[in-house]
């Protein structure tokens, strides 16, 4: 038998060959990589393998078990679909970055030790950054910078946590970690940032709408879901996650309702959907973890489908704002149908994939008798139908006629959407193949009479609310606006600080300067004594004190970033580094 290699390496190493190939060969090669990875994954031995000595520790590059296999399958599957969707793209950077990114996600999934986890974690951050940069606009460059700063911050927290964890436990292998001390808390923060848990979520709706059309499809699948995987492995049953998840399901829907950029609407609904998974992890029972995994699986497909359909609209019309779009079903009927299938799936309509996966988590919540959480999730289920289920297809493909004349996207895009749509419907109708690969045995039947009728009632009356509000004109109109999110607290103070150094501090400096010049001028009228005083004043005040503000300014100036602002994150990272060093000194002393 052929020896299998860690799945991540197929993608990462395979990606280096892409720039050397051209035309059809390149397409075939890119499509063959996920297939190869899939076959390789089937042959990977169960349990831990590929253990490599590193310093005094052992790296475990392959840990195959129930949980990691499902995530491995879905990451490979979505890479396959994403590659089909991106076949027409000529830009090699995007392809290489996408494969490295997917490789990073697979690495995170299959690694069994914290060091290689950190390596793959950072690889994902760097590679996905290129998917934003490749859009090549000033806006995306700034967004990529902020995105990177966020993930750098998360990465530093993770690293600090790992260092503390390893120094306390003496091992780098990990499975269940649990919140117990500072180290585990820092690791937790690092994971939470990637899972877009409040208040660390604002990088997501900031960056994803600015990524490339094809890049956003990969991004919607990998970062948050690999974080969900890792949280499900390391922190199941943490009550804080249950509440954080329930909150995550609720607050983004308000933002999604008022967002104008369609990919931003999808980004907020992505946070909402990840909230269901995080909540399930917080519950931590077998049914809940099954729900998390199943939901992650279905979610990756239908969210990618929605991002693909919006990407197709952006690709063909160059517009993505709800204010610019409308009535596109006339020219893009296939895309409209695919989008509606994705929308029905995310809304958990019976016979679509969201229904068979979300129910598991909600059933687990009900089993635990968490009344408030249950009502929050139910509210979120109705809300998600409202913004992702109706708003997205309605404002883009129906609604008022925007007068845009266009046509269907290229064949490869339609094919990718078709495959994803097929999987959404297939799993919705026949969930057994998915249920069979879940980590725990499933004894759950989504299609009971009361469950179906209850869900249909919830959704249809949500739709009734939408209809009435639209017809009465009460529905918030689409506006071109910037809606502030928690990133305001990270973006504005830095800018204010720079402004403070620039204006008030400089002015004070000048005032002091002129004041003493005046005194000196008076003194000049007096005889010799005043000359002495003048010299002293000149020395002490004019030279040192008046220069002080401008010295501060010159010191701060280099920190000024490309986007003409001090990134507040930089200060955080600095503080983080300092605190790690301090902690290490503390331990050593």
């Amino acid at each position: 038998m052929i020896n299998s290699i860690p799945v991540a390496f197929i993608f990462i190493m395979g990606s280096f060959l892409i720039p050397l190939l051209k035309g059809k060969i390149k397409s075939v090669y890119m499509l063959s990589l996920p297939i190869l990875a899939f076959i390789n994954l089937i042959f990977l031995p169960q349990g831990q393998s590929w253990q490599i000595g590193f310093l005094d520790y052992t790296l475990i590059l392959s840990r195959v078990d129930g949980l990691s296999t499902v995530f491995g399958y879905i990451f490979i599957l979505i890479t396959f679909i994403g590659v089909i969707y991106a076949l027409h793209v000529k830009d090699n950077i995007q392809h290489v970055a996408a494969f490295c990114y997917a490789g990073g996600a697979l690495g995170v999934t299959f690694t069994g030790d914290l060091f290689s986890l950190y390596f793959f974690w950072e690889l994902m951050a760097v590679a996905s950054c290129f998917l934003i940069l490749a859009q090549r606009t000033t806006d995306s460059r700034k967004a990529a910078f902020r995105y990177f700063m966020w993930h750098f911050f998360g990465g530093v927290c993770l690293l600090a946590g790992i260092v503390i964890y390893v120094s306390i436990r003496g091992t780098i292998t990990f499975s269940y970690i649990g919140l117990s001390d500072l180290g585990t808390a820092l690791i937790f923060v690092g994971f939470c940032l990637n899972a877009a848990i409040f208040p660390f979520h604002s990088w997501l709706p900031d960056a994803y709408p600015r990524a490339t059309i094809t890049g956003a499809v990969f991004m919607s699948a990998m970062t948050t879901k690999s974080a969900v995987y890792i949280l499900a492995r390391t922190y199941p049953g943490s009550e804080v996650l249950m509440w954080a998840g329930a909150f995550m399901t609720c607050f983004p829907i308000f933002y999604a309702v008022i967002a104008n950029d369609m990919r931003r609407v999808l980004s907020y609904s992505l946070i909402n959907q990840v909230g269901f998974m995080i909540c399930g992890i917080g519950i931590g029972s077998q049914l809940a973890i099954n729900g998390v995994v199943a939901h992650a699986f279905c979610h990756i497909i239908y969210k990618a489908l929605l991002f693909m359909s919006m990407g197709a609209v952006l690709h063909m019309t160059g517009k993505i704002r709800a204010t610019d779009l409308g009535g596109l079903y006339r020219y893009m009927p296939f895309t409209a149908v695919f989008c509606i299938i994705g929308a029905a799936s995310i809304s958990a309509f019976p016979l679509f994939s969201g229904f068979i996966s979300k129910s598991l988590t909600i059933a687990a919540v009900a089993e635990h008798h968490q009344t408030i959480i249950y009502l929050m999730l139910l509210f979120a289920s109705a809300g998600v139908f409202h913004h992702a289920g109706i708003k997205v297809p309605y404002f883009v493909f129906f609604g008022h006629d925007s007068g845009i004349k266009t046509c269907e996207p290229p064949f490869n895009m339609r094919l990718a959407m078709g495959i994803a749509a097929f999987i959404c419907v297939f799993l919705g109708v026949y969930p057994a193949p998915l249920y069979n690969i879940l980590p725990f045995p499933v004894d759950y039947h989504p299609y009971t009479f009361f469950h179906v009728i209850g869900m249909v009632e919830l959704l249809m009356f949500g739709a009734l609310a939408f209809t009435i509000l639209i017809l009465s004109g009460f529905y918030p109109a689409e506006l071109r606006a910037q809606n502030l999110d928690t990133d305001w607290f990270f973006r504005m103070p830095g800018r204010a600080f720079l402004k403070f150094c620039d204006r008030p501090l400089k002015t004070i400096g000048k005032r002091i300067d002129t004041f003493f010049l005046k005194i000196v001028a008076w003194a000049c009228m007096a005889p010799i004594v005043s000359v002495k005083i003048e010299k002293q004043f000149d020395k002490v005040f004019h030279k040192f004190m008046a220069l002080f503000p401008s010295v501060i300014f010159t010191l701060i100036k280099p920190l000024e970033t490309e986007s003409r602002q001090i990134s507040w994150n930089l200060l955080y990272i600095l503080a983080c580094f300092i605190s790690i060093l301090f902690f290490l000194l503390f331990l050593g002393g």
Partner: protein
Amino acid sequence: MTPRKPLNLLEGPDIQRKFIKNFYITLCVILMIDLTAFFLFDRQGHFPWEEVPFFNAVYGFTACVSLIFIAKILRWIVKQKEGYYD
């Protein structure tokens, strides 16, 4: 590529009115089914309200209406001009 011939499936005010009428009829049918089921079967649930008929319908409707109200208030708080950060 030249734009394809537009598909005019849903044009005209009549179709919209018909669509909405059918939608209301569907809602009534769903409620009827729920009510019949309430009398015919014994419903088992984890929460007391699961045994109440129409609970999900009422909850879904109020949830979505309150969602819009809160979103409107939220917009009033967080709305800024485009290019606010530039």
